């Protein structure tokens, strides 16, 4: 246990009654009152997550934009200062090292990467960077909170200045929250409107406490709800849906790959896959009988395996077993009936459209 790391919010989690688990080398809250209640709080009202374990890598230098254009899959020239973009870091074969959000700031770019991938991302980016580009791992110094749900602005209003509510989806601004200088961004991983707040790690507990002290206090939410929320939206998770074994194209992320300009590692392969199709595609699945699909469960048609579940859970919003799966392209159409082998028990399922719920992070906040 001694080599597990804790965020600066660890004591706050324990005080809220969190169940703590080992996640990517961190002792993180998986749930407080229960995954289902936290999940529904975010869909219906507002929840607060500690995501300080995530990584922040800064890329600084005159040619940073050109460098990132040649390193990441999305077209980074489409964002200017105060804007964020979903993108991927490919390896030389076009496999995925990580998916990430790139923020264009006034004088630098900030890349927010998965906790489990900080080291490989930093090694890759620093390794490719020319001498006049500085790549700095800020992860240990940065605290990060995600305030997510339609009532996010109610919780943030009393303690933020200026009020960051004019921000559009995927925009970011500097602000003070609870008197702490922060970067506040209309981003998230839940499918609900909301913000992510980055600050000096030592100051994160002050922001947490201030949000929890507002009249419209969010519910404390753990990694369990974070996972079920993203799954209902069909958002991929590195290690489940994304890996070095596949390009982003098979995962349905062509929209985040700038194939028109290309020039990044793996672009030719991705272009080819985009034109010819991939043998397997990532789809949403729902069981049509009781049961819960889990990562690793085989997906069958007529007794033949046609794919594998990559993530699965009981959807708290829908009350049915739901998951994501890679299935052979000919079975990747909505409405196709499949069987999921759940530890030896066949369960009827069908391919569904994503997102599975009627949510969008672009929705306006409640006033």
């Amino acid at each position: 246990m001694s080599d597990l790391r804790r965020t600066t919010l660890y004591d706050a989690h324990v005080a809220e009654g969190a169940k703590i688990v080992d996640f990517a080398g961190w002792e993180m809250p998986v749930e407080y009152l229960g995954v289902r209640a936290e999940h529904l709080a975010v869909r219906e009202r507002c929840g607060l997550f500690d995501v300080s374990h995530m990584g922040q890598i800064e890329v600084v230098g005159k040619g940073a934009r050109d460098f990132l254009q040649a390193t990441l899959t999305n077209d980074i020239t489409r964002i200017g200062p105060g804007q964020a973009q979903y993108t991927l870091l490919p390896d030389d074969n076009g496999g995925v090292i990580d998916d990430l959000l790139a923020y264009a700031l006034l004088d630098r770019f900030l890349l927010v990467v998965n906790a489990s991938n900080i080291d490989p991302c930093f090694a890759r980016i620093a390794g490719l960077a020319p001498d006049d580009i500085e790549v700095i791992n800020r992860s240990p110094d940065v605290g990060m909170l995600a305030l997510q749900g339609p009532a996010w602005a109610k919780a943030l209003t009393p303690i933020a200045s200026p009020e960051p509510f004019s921000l559009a989806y995927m925009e970011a601004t500097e602000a003070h929250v609870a008197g702490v200088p922060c970067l506040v961004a209309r981003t998230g991983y839940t499918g609900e409107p909301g913000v992510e707040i980055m600050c000096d790690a030592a100051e994160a507990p002050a922001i947490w406490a201030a949000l929890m002290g507002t009249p419209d206090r969010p519910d404390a939410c753990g990694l369990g709800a974070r996972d079920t929320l993203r799954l209902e939206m069909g958002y991929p998770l590195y290690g489940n849906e994304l890996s070095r074994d596949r390009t982003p194209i098979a995962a349905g992320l062509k929209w985040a790959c700038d194939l028109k300009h290309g020039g990044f590692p793996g672009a030719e392969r991705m272009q080819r896959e985009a034109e010819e199709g991939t043998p397997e595609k990532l789809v949403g699945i729902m069981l049509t009988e009781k049961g819960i699909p889990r990562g690793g469960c085989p997906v069958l048609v007529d007794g033949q395996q046609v794919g594998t579940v990559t993530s699965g859970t009981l959807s708290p919003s829908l009350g049915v077993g739901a998951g994501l799966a890679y299935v052979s392209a000919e079975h990747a159409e909505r409405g196709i009936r499949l069987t999921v082998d759940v530890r030896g028990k066949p369960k009827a399922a069908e391919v569904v459209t994503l997102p599975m719920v009627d949510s969008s992070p672009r929705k306006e906040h409640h006033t």
Partner: protein
Amino acid sequence: MSDESYPAELRYHPEHDWARVDGDEATFGVTWYAQDALGEVVYYDPPAVGDTVTAGSSYGELESVKAVSDIIAPASGEVIAVNDKVSDAPELVNSDPYGDGWLIKVRLSSPGELDALMDDAAYREYLSGLSA
């Protein structure tokens, strides 16, 4: 959720299952510790009435949103009842693990197996060893 308790009238298996013995029949369920470790139970996959369960082997599964847990039979026998209420409302395992959250009733085939189970004091002692 419920408060931690281990009733004195039950017998306990080290895989965190309990048995309430009534003559040659017994009711099985999982302990407070088991439901707490699993979190909110959202799915119960029970055996069928008439199935045979074997001491130390799995007879069904409980699932939380995040995890799957085998349910281990504390003693062998034939399933004579399944708690359908838990199939419909699995959270009963959390709210009332020794009452409405019971899982199956069996007709014991080898009642002598019960001697291997722990009483509440021994089970509490066993739990304190797990967390040390």
